[in-house]
C-alpha cells in the first residue's frame, strides 16, 4: 500500500517527533511510506479570510499528493481543512474540484487511517500503563468525528490508562492565530482544561493536533505544572517493536 505522509507545517517545523512516530506506525502497519516535498494545507490563510492564498496552497497540496494511493495526516484540523473546506475553494473550476475531492476521499487523519485502513501490531511489552487523559481537538471531533478511534488505538497499544475529562470536548483556546490575537482568553481556556486535568490527577495529556497541544504545553510549562503533553502517535509508536 503506497501511502504519502503529509506531516503538516506545524509538525514539520515545530515537532518532527510526531512525523517520525507517524512514519513508524505506518511502516509497522505494512505501508510503503513516502514523504514528498511539502508545506502547508492553507488553513491559516483560509481561517483569516485569505481564500486566494488558501486556494493556492490547496492546489499545491493536490499536485504534490495526487499520485499517491493514500494520504495520511497526523492532525484533525489540517485533515478537516482539506476534506471539509478544501473543495469549496475550487467552486470556480468543476474539473479541479472533482480531482481535489477524489484526493481528499483517499486522505485520512492518522487515527482514522489506522482504524479503517491499516493497523499496526502493538508488540512492545509494557509493564504498567501510564495514567493519562485525552483532549478532543475541535476540528477533528466535529468535522471528522474523531473521538473513538484514538482511544481504541491507545487501549489496544496497552500504553496508557485513560481517565476521561469532563471537558474533553471543550475548546482548549488555541484556534490558530486566535491564540496570539486574544492570548488572555486563549490562556483562560487552557487553564480550564488544566484545572480538570489536575482534578483528575493525570500527569499526561494526549491529543491528536500539535497546534492545540503546543498551546496547552506552553501554558502548562509557564505554570510549572508536572503534566506531560503527547501526540497519540508518539504514545502508540512507543509500543511498536524495534521503533526508535
Amino acid at each position, binding site marked *: 500500500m503506497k501511502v504519502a505522509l503529509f506531516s503538516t507545517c506545524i509538525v514539520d517545523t515545530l515537532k*518532527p517527533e510526531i512525523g*517520525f512516530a507517524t512514519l513508524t506506525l505506518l511502516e509497522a502497519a505494512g505501508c510503503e511510506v513516502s514523504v514528498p516535498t511539502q508545506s502547508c494545507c492553507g488553513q491559516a490563510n483560509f481561517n*483569516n479570510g485569505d*481564500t486566494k492564498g488558501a486556494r493556492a496552497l490547496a492546489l499545491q497540496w493536490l499536485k504534490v499528493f495526487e499520485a499517491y494511493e493514500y494520504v495520511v495526516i497526523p492532525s484533525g484540523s489540517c485533515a478537516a481543512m482539506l476534506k471539509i473546506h478544501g473543495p469549496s475553494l475550487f467552486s470556480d473550476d468543476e474539473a479541479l474540484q472533482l480531482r481535489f475531492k477524489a484526493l481528499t476521499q483517499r486522505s485520512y487523519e492518522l487515527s482514522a487511517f489506522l482504524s479503517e485502513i491499516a493497523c499496526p501490531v502493538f508488540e512492545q511489552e509494557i509493564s504498567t500503563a501510564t495514567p493519562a487523559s485525552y483532549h478532543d481537538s475541535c476540528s477533528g471531533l466535529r468535522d471528522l468525528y474523531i473521538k473513538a478511534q484514538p482511544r481504541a488505538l491507545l487501549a489496544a497499544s496497552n500504553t496508557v490508562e485513560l481517565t476521561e475529562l469532563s471537558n474533553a470536548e471543550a475548546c482548549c483556546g488555541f484556534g490558530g492565530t486566535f491564540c496570539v490575537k486574544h492570548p488572555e482568553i486563549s490562556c483562560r481556556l487552557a487553564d480550564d482544561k488544566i484545572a480538570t486535568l489536575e482534578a483528575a490527577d493525570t500527569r499526561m495529556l494526549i491529543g491528536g493536533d500539535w497546534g492545540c497541544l*503546543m498551546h496547552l504545553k506552553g501554558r502548562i*510549562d509557564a505554570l510549572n505544572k508536572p503534566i506531560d503533553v503527547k501526540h497519540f502517535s508518539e504514545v502508540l509508536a512507543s509500543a511498536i517493536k524495534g521503533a526508535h
Partner: protein
Amino acid sequence: MSTAMNSQKVGFRPASQTALNNPDLQQALARARGGFVDKRQIAIEALPEFEAIKARAKAIKDHSLDHLSDYLIEFEENVTASGGQVHWAQTTEQANEIILNICNEAKARKITKGKSMISEEMQLNAALEQADFEVMETDLGEYIIQLAKETPSHIIAPAVHKTKAQIETLFDQFHAADLPSNRSREALVSEARLRLREAFLSADVGITGANFLVANTGSTVLVTNEGNGDLTASIPDVHIVTASIDKVIPKLSDLPTFLRLLGRSATGQEITTYTTLFTGPKQAPDEAGPKAFHVVLLDNGRSEILHSEFKAALRCIRCGACMNHCAVYGTVGGHAYESVYPGPIGQVMTPLLNGLEGSLDTISACTMNGHCSVVCPMSIPLTDLIRQHRINAFTQNKNSLIERKGLGAWQWLSLHPRAYCLGTALSGRAVKMLNAWPFLQRFTPMLRGWKTGRALMRAQGTTFQAQYKKRRQHEDTT
C-alpha cells in the same frame, strides 16, 4: 429610570480583558455555563426525533425567507382582518417614531415592556424616555439591568452576568431602605414582583416582542417563563408588538415544530411556561384585552441580508444555544462584544447591523471550534458565516497590514519549496535562538502574543522533512 445604551465603547479586546479580570462576572458565568449546557443536553437526549424536527424547521424557515414578502403581506392582511394594524419600518429611527406616535395618540404616560431584542436594536427605551414616557421593563432580568442602567449580556438571560449578591445590593438601593441582608432568591423575586404588579396595573401601553409571526392567522407568538409578557400585553388599552421581518412563518400548524426546538435549545425546557398567541385587539365576546393592537415590523438591513451570503443567519430563532456553548462567550460574557447580539450569532449579525469596519476585533474572537454550529437548532453554519466576514474583511483590505503581509509571506514561502525548507529550517533555529537569548523575543510581534501566558516551545532546530531526507540518505549509503 434610564437605560444606558452604548455607554463608552472600548473595543472587544480591552473589554474582554476587563471581563476576564472581573471576579463577579466570572462567578456568574461559571454558574450559568453548566446549567444551560447540561439542561439542553438532557432535553435533547430525551427527544430522539430532534434531528428530524431540526430538518423540518430549517426547510420551513428557508421556504418562508424565499417567499418573505408574500408571507409578510399575508400576515398584514390577517392582522388587519382581526382588527389590528401593521406598521412598516425600514430603520430603527422610523420604528421608534411609529411607537412614539402611537403612545402620544393614546395619551399614554406609563409604559410596560416585555423582553424584546428588537427594541434593544432600536434603543427604544432611550427614545421613549427622551419623550418623557415612564418605561418599566417587566422581564425579571430586564428589570434588573434597567435598574443597573446596563444592557442585556445574553439574548434570553439578560442579567446572566450578575451574581445574586449584586442583585441584592441593587434591590436594596431601589426597593426599601431597611431590608435584611442575605435574603433568599424567592424573597428577591417577591420584591420585584410587587413593583412589577403596580406597573402592570397602571400601564397605558404595553410593548412586547414576538418570537414568531404567523402569516395565515395574523398572530404574534410570545414565549416567556414569567408570564410578564401576558400581563404587559393584556392589561393596558394599547398593545404594541415589535418584531423583525424575518420572524414570519407561513402557518399556525408550523409553529409546534419551532416551539419544540426553541425551549429545549434555550433552557432545556420541553416547552416554556407561557406560550401566547396574540391575534388582534379585544373582540366580542372577550372580557379583557387591549383596545388597540399594533405590530411594528422592522427591517433594519434584513432585506439586504436576505440577498447576501449571510441569509442563513435570518433563520435564527434567538434561543441562545450558540452563546451558551461558545468557549469565548463563556470566558468573557456578553458585554465584551459591545453589541445587542453577543456570542456567535452576534459575531455574524453585528458586522451586518453596525458595519464590518468596527467589528474586526469581534470577528477575530472565534477559535473556529464549530460547537455553535453543531448546537444551533436552525442549522445556521455560524462558524462559516464568521469566516465569511473575515473573507470579506480580507477582500476589502480591512484587516491589519501586518496580518495581510504575514499571510502573504506565508503563502509565498509555502509555494516555493526551497524557500520553505530554508525558511522553516531557519525558524526552527530562530526558536532555538529565542530560547537561548530571550531579549530577542521583544522584536517578534507574533511571539509577544504567544508569550502572554505561555512558555516558548523547545524546537529541535531542523524540520521533519530535513531530518527525514538525511535519514534516507544515510540508509541509502549504508
